[in-house]
């Protein structure tokens, strides 16, 4: 188990353990991404080996910058790996025959 998850059992009796719980922090990040300017529901966030993996496709480079800023604000102190792709806008080079 990674350190951030283990930390939830380190202390008891006040609000700190839940506030430090990495799963809840990721959940709150997802709520914020949906609620704020991005309206983003399509990006995946996973806890993996103590780090947070952020993956998915976003509509524009500006959206990616905004998203990463919010991620780093919400998950300050945690290791974040991101692999975010900007949606491609080229026309297809062939059609599918059905």
């Amino acid at each position, binding site marked *: 188990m990674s350190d951030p998850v283990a930390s939830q059992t380190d202390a008891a009796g006040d609000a700190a353990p839940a506030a430090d719980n990495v799963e809840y922090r990721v959940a709150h990040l997802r709520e914020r991404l949906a609620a704020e300017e991005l*309206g983003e529901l*399509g990006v995946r966030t996973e806890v993996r080996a103590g780090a947070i993996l952020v993956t*998915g*496709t976003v*509509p*524009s480079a500006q959206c990616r910058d905004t998203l990463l800023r919010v991620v780093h604000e919400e998950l300050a102190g945690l290791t974040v790996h991101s692999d975010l792709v900007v949606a491609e806008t*080229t*026309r*297809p080079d062939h059609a599918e025959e*059905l």
Partner: protein
Amino acid sequence: MIRVAAVGDIHMGPDSPGLLRPAFDTLPDCADLLLLAGDLTRHGTPEEARVVADEVRGLAVPVVAVLGNHDHHDEQPEKVTGILREAGVTVLEGDGTVVDCAGTRVGIAGTKGFGGGFVGRCAGEFGEPLMKEFVRYTRRSADSLRGALEDLGRRGCDVRVALTHFSPVPDTLAGEPLEIYPFLGSYLLAEAIDTAGADLAVHGHAHAGTEHGMTAGGVRVRNVAQPVIRRAFNVYQLQTEQVPAAG
């Protein structure tokens, strides 16, 4: 042969003007019509809808759309619909339209659809009023899709396409977490498509899903969410002449 271009989940916002227009301007070279499978905006605001409207205004092919859940978020779907219609887009919700493509009548039946899940792993119309209404909302949407497809059949369409935002089948959700399938689509939509008949079903919504699927009744399904197809749109060629069965 009919060439159907389709894309969903373009999620346009203030930084989006002009992103898709260059590709859309090439549509007359490769397609007879463009279908937009919902989630055209990020929050469903009139400002975002105007960005979408400007992106498709005056295109040389007919544009037919359904809204998605994002287009409902600001709780002004009628306003979003009106802005798109003013730009020449045919916006469907529980109804259909017929597009004449060089003498071939192409019928498109559209609805946003909703969730509930797939056979054996789905929500039931049981218990709390909120839960029952959840399933009834999907059922009403599916019933309207079936009615619209049947009506297009009576109107002598050569080709019929079902256009939704939510998925009718689990096949095209492959890649999404299994736990969220009930929020991504419903078998009720597929049952409606199979009951009424269609030549193609197109949807979006599942960004991490898969492009290809099929209903239990054998109707091809395509997830055209932009993150899935990784293009401005994809094109599907549908044969309009009856091919004799082999053997």
